[in-house]
């Protein structure tokens, strides 16, 4: 705690700020240039990682920035994806209305879940978010609404004028733009008065309430924005895969995305992206025969052990490790 509260030397602070602004812009520019050179497998993989990054960023707003540990975030992701496929129907639809619809559906469910679950805190909040996500899972799994446990296919991918999500490169640039938008939005929120209030709630909710802040409203707003952004990731996923199934809303998905942001580093936007990259690569490596031999069939075992080792050894995530290794931050 003292490390958080101690004033940082001005120079480091400014360096950090420049670094944390330039680094993501540099990465995005690099990706934009490299896009056409990645090849079919490469683009597909990068698109997957970028979608997961958006998903992880949306949860970072809750967990890292506001201190609300949600274990049901996959519900909003899945609802965004389902809304896209269900609304596009047989004729397909335009991104111009499918995207807002997906985000609004996810935000709508987030509003209901948030309004209820924010009446609790701590460990209760974890359980309640998980339970409501499971409810959404059951709705898609057990009823005919979304094709039951098999899920449904999309007939035509979303389009917007010349942009056709059927095209691999279009997909790549739309997803990249969405990632930049999400990152930028959250960076702005982090520097705004609203973001400062969220940080205050994370550090000491009692004091914020005593200072006259409508804590519940702030938390609910964060919850709904996070839900909407998860819906954005869901929209992109549906447009990429062309198919949705209830597994999207499963609690394993919620656990994985929570893992990503902790893996990367809590409270840092780039932590969410780093976590998404590392997690996806780790999963890919652990389930590929060429890397781990016969263990590939049992990737859950190795992944589980990796998670346990990670919790034991790196409680502050990869960013924390980098900070520990660099003498400047010591």
């Amino acid at each position, binding site marked *: 705690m003292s490390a958080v509260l101690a004033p940082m030397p001005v120079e480091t602070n400014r360096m950090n700020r420049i670094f944390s602004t330039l680094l993501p812009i540099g990465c995005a520019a690099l990706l934009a240039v490299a896009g056409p050179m990645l090849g079919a497998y490469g683009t597909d993989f990068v698109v997957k990682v970028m979608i997961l990054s958006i998903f992880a960023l949306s949860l970072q707003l809750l967990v890292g920035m506001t201190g609300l540990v949600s274990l049901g975030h996959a519900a909003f992701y899945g609802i965004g994806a389902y809304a896209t496929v269900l609304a596009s129907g047989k004729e397909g639809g335009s991104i111009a209305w499918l995207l807002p619809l997906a985000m609004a559906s996810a935000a709508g469910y987030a509003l209901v879940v948030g309004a209820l679950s924010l009446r609790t805190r701590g460990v209760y909040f974890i359980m*309640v978010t998980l339970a409501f996500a499971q409810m959404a899972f*059951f709705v898609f799994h057990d009823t005919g609404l979304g094709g039951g446990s098999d899920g449904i296919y999309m007939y035509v991918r979303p389009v917007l004028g010349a942009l056709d999500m059927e095209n691999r490169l279009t997909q790549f640039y739309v997803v990249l733009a969405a990632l930049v938008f999400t990152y930028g939005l959250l960076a702005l929120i982090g520097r705004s008065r609203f973001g400062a209030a969220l940080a205050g709630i994370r550090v000491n909710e009692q004091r914020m309430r005593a200072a006259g802040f409508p804590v519940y409203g702030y938390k609910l707003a964060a919850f709904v924005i996070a839900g909407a952004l998860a819906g954005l990731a869901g929209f992109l996923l549906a447009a990429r895969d062309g198919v949705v199934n209830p597994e999207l809303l499963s609690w394993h998905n919620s656990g994985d995305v*929570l893992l990503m942001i902790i893996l990367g580093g809590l409270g840092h936007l780039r932590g969410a992206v780093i976590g998404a990259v590392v997690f996806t690569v780790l999963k890919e490596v652990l389930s590929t025969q060429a890397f781990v031999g016969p263990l590939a069939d049992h990737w859950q075992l190795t992944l589980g052990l990796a998670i346990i080792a990670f919790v034991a050894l790196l409680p502050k995530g990869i960013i924390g490790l980098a900070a520990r290794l660099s003498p400047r931050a010591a």
Partner: protein
Amino acid sequence: MDLGTFLVQCLNAVQYGLLLFLVASGLTLIFGIMGVINLAHGSFYMIGAYLAFSLAPLFGDRFIVMLLAGVVLTALLGYVLEWAFFSYLYQRDHLQQVLMTYGLILVFEELRSILVGNDVHGVPLPAWLGGSFALGDLMSYPWYRIFASLACVVVALGLYYVVNRTRLGMMIRAGASNRDMVRGLGIDIRRLYRIVFAAGVALGALAGMIAAPMSSVYPNMGASVLIICFVVVVIGGIGSITGALVAALLVGFVDTFGKVFFAELSGVGIYVLMAIILIWRPEGLMGRKT
């Protein structure tokens, strides 16, 4: 719905509720006393069920002996797990507890898949519990479900006795309310935690063993039970064993009758119940206001 069907459904609801209570009591015991949120608790239920599957051929008709053997084995497992993993989590925040226990779930599920495979298996009923008795003109009810309910009641009474009437129970309650003071009085709190954790694991596993002949054993059976147990704990109030009992029975009734009246949407019923409780009493039925 005639009277016979109604009675059968009531018995089912009570039996399901009692079984949930058994799982939830282990969860709430571990959380209430050690402050650890244990996602792997569903895995202990799964381990119990698979243990019943593997032990059943060895024990044959000595079903109760098998249950006792399973309780001893899983309590030992709990003792070791506490020592190896959970004892590091007490000082950490909930987020890391969630993560580590999530990792444990993956490990347990994969070990299950390696050791037993991914097929669904039935567990044979012991012969002396096999029959059923008539209820009304048309319906009959299996004896085993009555046995399952009774077993849960016996365990619940035993739990009540131990927590409220014994020296160990006194230490447990004291440890829940003031850890440092208990340590100051010269009680080895780490050993106490280890015992409580072992008991919590054994409770979850015992529920799994009792459920196995009714539900058969299948992959991921732990996860669904875990989430329903969370609902039970949220409704009942965290750390309250009585609350867990009331909530478990409530969930049992809502779920059972939900399946009768709204077959397709039955999965949603208990969550609606949870939403209502959250609006009405966010701290749970028996929970203390925070």
